[in-house]
């Protein structure tokens, strides 16, 4: 422990803590802006500066460690002036028309400026130009960038994609796509982690809410909403709801209020994905065990489009090992516009399908040209949770007063296995539960595969099914996934089945999730999904009655001809941008 004084008061704090952390642990808040714990501690904004007795110059508290006997002033006149002027300088290069910004009221610059009582601008405004291809799902607005470098750090160190880089020099230093590329030319996976770590509105997902409003206003359209697993964990965060209040049932009511004709659960098609993917895995395993050496392991899950984009550019040799199963979103689209259109007795073109996702890459996925196996576009538009919240707010709906509703049938019924798709390990666990049944004809203990749960970046487990030892790996976060793929390619590790999710902690920490300054909420949200699974009466995808009905009435059997046509894809044919 180290003895220090902050603003005259004595404290004991652990060694190697920064001044900022030491102060915060003792309820002294030092305003800060560019700092993001363990990701960005570079002292760029100079908002967190403090005075250290004996030093002439102020030091940045985010990256200066405490020392024995150190005496710190966090609010001296020198500090107050520097902090405020530095925020005013940042504002001189920031488009501060906050009323028009999606991050208003959730903006770290706005908060710090308000807290510091900044008003009456003194400096010449010098705002860079907004110049971007706004058709791309991920948008960077230079008018708002404060050059905190968090996006560069997240993309470099967490996702290891190096899409962003520092560009230009001197006072023109800014952030841009590396090597001067256009975003469409980079290997950006559209994971959206840079968006959720941006302190301001400089990085945003393309807003598609108007498309939805137009469809809702069109009397000729039947509007269908589907809600992804991880959406139910987070949609109420920015609407003032507690987790207990923000149930998927209340969300159903909200979406009905917005005007959707039908509200379905993407977790249904997560179960459908498991039927196909588990069958595919069992099929491969059976062929392999009977001596077919053309089968290559591991088989990779394919439901995360960020991961699919990643493998296509970074490990193209491994693409054939992706499961050919479409993601739940795309399966849902295909089923809605075929089977469900048939049930409704309408042409698929009449249906407008909106997919609510915790994800930005899903906006890319639904645009892939081969995603039209129903004859129409499978999914019409994808909205992130942030767009969902804006949609609800723009309708003036007070969600806290809404009663809970029920998903429409039959595509609103899902198992616990479907729910856990939204957290790392969930797809694998769900698949193994069903694969076990397909191989042995019996159900395992639903928690038999719990070893794949947890938030480590790269997890391994071995399970036995009918005497066969299966080596499993689960990775989340592209940095971890890269290490895993390298190890597979160099022969250092070998597995039968691997689940990859591009975002740290999986979809619960997705790039389309609500943003809360300085907090990583993925693990907490993931635990909500695991709890839903525990509470569910249905723990196995293959026991979902709607799934049974779907196969009985329409699809036939997993990997059958219809399934093959509607529910499977060749990812090598996915263009990265068109």
């Amino acid at each position, binding site marked *: 422990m180290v003895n220090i004084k902050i603003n005259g008061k004595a404290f004991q704090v652990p060694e190697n803590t920064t001044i900022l952390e030491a102060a915060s642990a003792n309820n002294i808040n030092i305003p800060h802006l560019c700092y993001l714990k363990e990701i960005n501690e570079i*002292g760029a904004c100079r908002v967190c500066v403090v005075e250290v007795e004996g*030093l002439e110059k102020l030091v940045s508290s985010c*990256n200066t460690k405490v020392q024995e006997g150190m005496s710190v002033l966090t609010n001296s006149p020198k500090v107050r002036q520097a902090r405020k002027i530095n925020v005013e300088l940042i504002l001189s290069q920031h488009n501060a028309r906050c009323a028009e910004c999606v991050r208003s009221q959730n903006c770290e610059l706005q908060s710090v400026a308000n807290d510091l009582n900044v008003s009456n601008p003194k400096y010449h405004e010098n705002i860079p*130009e907004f110049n971007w291809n706004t058709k791309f799902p991920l948008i960077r607005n230079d008018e708002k960038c404060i050059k905190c470098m968090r996006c560069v750090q997240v993309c470099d160190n967490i996702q290891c994609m190096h899409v962003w880089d520092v*560009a230009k020099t001197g*006072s023109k230093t800014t952030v*841009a796509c590396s090597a001067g590329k256009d975003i469409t030319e980079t290997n950006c996976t559209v994971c959206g982690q840079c968006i959720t770590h941006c302190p301001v509105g400089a990085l945003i997902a393309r807003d598609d809410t108007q498309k939805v409003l137009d469809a809702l206003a069109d009397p000729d359209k039947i509007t269908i909403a589907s809600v992804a697993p991880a959406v139910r964990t987070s949609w109420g965060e920015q609407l003032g709801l507690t987790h207990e209040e923000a149930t998927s049932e209340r969300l159903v009511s909200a979406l009905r209020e917005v005007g959707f004709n039908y509200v379905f659960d993407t977790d249904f098609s997560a179960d459908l994905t498991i039927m196909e993917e588990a069958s595919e895995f069992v099929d491969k395993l059976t062929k392999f065990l009977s001596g077919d050496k053309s089968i290559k392991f591991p088989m990779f899950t394919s439901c995360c489009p960020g991961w699919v984009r990643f493998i296509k550019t970074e490990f193209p040799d491994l693409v054939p090992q992706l499961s050919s199963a479409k993601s739940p979103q795309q399966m849902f689209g295909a089923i809605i516009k075929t089977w469900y259109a048939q049930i409704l007795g309408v042409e698929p073109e009449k249906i407008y399908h909106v997919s609510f996702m915790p994800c930005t890459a899903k906006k890319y996925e639904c645009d892939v040209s081969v995603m039209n196996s129903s004859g129409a576009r499978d999914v019409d538009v994808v909205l992130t949770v942030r767009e969902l919240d804006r949609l609800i707010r723009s309708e003036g709906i007070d969600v806290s007063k809404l009663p809970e509703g029920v998903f429409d049938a039959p595509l609103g019924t899902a198992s616990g296995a479907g729910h856990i798709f939204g957290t790392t390990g969930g797809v694998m666990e769900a698949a193994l539960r069903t694969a076990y049944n397909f191989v042995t004809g019996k159900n395992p203990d639903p928690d038999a595969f719990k070893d794949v749960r947890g938030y480590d970046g790269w997890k391994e487990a071995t399970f036995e099914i009918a005497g066969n030892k299966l080596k499993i790996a689960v990775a989340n976060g592209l940095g971890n996934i890269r290490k895993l793929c390298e190890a597979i390619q160099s022969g250092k590790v070998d597995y039968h089945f691997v689940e990859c999710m591009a975002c740290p902690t999986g979809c619960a920490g997705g790039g389309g999730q609500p943003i809360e300054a300085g907090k990583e909420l993925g693990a907490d949200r993931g635990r909500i999904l695991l709890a839903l699974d525990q509470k569910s009466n249905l723990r196995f995808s293959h026991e979902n009655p709607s799934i049974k009905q779907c196969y009985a009435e329409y699809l036939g059997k997993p990997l059958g001809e219809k399934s093959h046509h509607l529910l499977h894809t060749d990812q090598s044919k996915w263009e990265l941008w068109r």
Partner: protein
Amino acid sequence: MSRLSITNTTHAQETVESLHRDLERRVISSPPGSCPLDLASSFLKVCAAQTCGKCVPCRIGLPQLEKLIDDVTENRADMSTIDLIEKTAQTICDSADCAIGYEAANMVLKGVRGFRDEYVEHVKNHHCTFGGFKAVPCVTLCPAHVDIPGYIALVNAGKFADAVRLIRKDNPFPSVCAMVCEHPCENKCRRGIVDDAINIRGLKLYAIDHSGHVPVYKENQPKPEQTGKRVAIIGGGPSGISAAYYLALMGHSVEIFEQRKQLGGMLRYGIPSYRLPREVLDEEINTLLTAGDIKVHKEISIGGENYPLAKLKSEFDAVYIAIGAHTDKSLRIEGEKSEGVMSAVTLLRRIGDNDFPDFTGKKVVVVGGGNVAMDCARSSLRLNAEKVTLAYRRRKEDMTALAEEVEATEVEGCEILELAAPLKVEVGSDGKAKALWVQQQMISNIKAGRPAPKNATAEPIRIEADIIVVAIGQGIESKNFENSGVAVKWGCIEALDSEELANMPGIFAGGDCVSGPATVIRAIAAGKVAAANIDEYLGYHHPIELPVEIPEPVLHNRPACGRVKMRERPIDQRIHDFKLVEKGMSEEEMQQESNRCLRCDYYGFGKFREGREFKW
């Protein structure tokens, strides 16, 4: 009113003068990697502030040029803007009334012609290829990219052995470089913005003086796994040994083929021991040879008929040619072949093998102005010469030798004769040299960035000389290699940037034999590059990793403070022996000097991109 009055400097004028000096230091310390267009525009702002305001091209043209360049950097320009910049600059150059205008425009002209691609890249792609590269200046400027802030921090913390280990990650010769490195790292040291560059070499000298023997491997550190691959290295100088060291660390078997009796190359046969004591050199080389499976063959020449290059290549998996630059260059004047005339290479090679000629009572003239000339002049004094004169075509300030070397040569008692071009050697009837006749020169126009001399209308001068040492540069023994099919241009071996020979896969070349005579640290860097690329060529990727932890910066004030200079032995003592001249810093000097370091690996851009290369 008095008719005339003395002009006194006001406080404001004094302040302005000091600001000019601040700016001068700042320009010198300009960080590498800044956008050249951005700099051009800011220089123009200074130039426009200097204009007297009379003539149109300067008063109006310079600010317009600044705006046009800003249009380019701020993405408002098209290709025609570049043409307009060039035409405007040319016009100011042609028509401004005085140098304030035409020289300012000339800077822009040089730029728009010298890095036109950069202008085009800005216009077409809104991108600066210089951008984003904001490295630590000293590390960037060191050819071997040694982690300088890291080892300064270690020296500051008293961890001298760790400092040596850290240096060896990028440069196997910390001791040699502590004594003889040209320290390009100091040229743009950010501390120069405050007061003066850090004495980096001095701090390295402190580290090696206090580290004790630092073995290549720590106790219990596992040795590398042997790959079974064999690499031949031709030349046991700094470049060859550096490559051998890293290749051995990577687990390859290395054999060094050295032409002379001992290893070291120019470190032994070019640099006298009063700058680099033999025991220091020997200890360093012997330590490096323990890095792994390294065999040394001495007194063997490769490339000729006795041992053709093709034969060597057939016996090894890869070859590195690092033969240095060891041949003489002649003056091509009358009498040069007479007794008493010798080349610098000959003199220094004899000294290198401890075969000291006796110059007692002799008058020595050294021809040249580089570091080698200084070494010859100072060595001649130590060989007991009666008088040593150094004759040079240009002026002292034009010499390529380090300023401190020139100064030491002079204070030790050598006379420097500037603007003296050798004309002929006067030979006595006994066939021995008697004098060197020189043609007086006058300094003239600047050519290729250096003031060139031309013959002055004056009578030649006679300098009495028993010994004439010709130190006007070295050549490369590349003939045999050229005959073996190696590409050679202007005497230098041609290699790719990877150092591989374009037409001979598996054969690499680097150091002086590729670059022409250069510096120790460049030769070492070439050895490092060769090792990395040979490792890849052999199908491996063995990383060389950061071996130690770097201390975080110490929090303290950094008031402006003078740079600690190295001390030297008294002149009257040192000119009689070949013992080390330089003396290291004291502990308190080391503390003060290492505290001056601004830790660019941590502050500024450093902290953002980890501030260092953890492995290569």
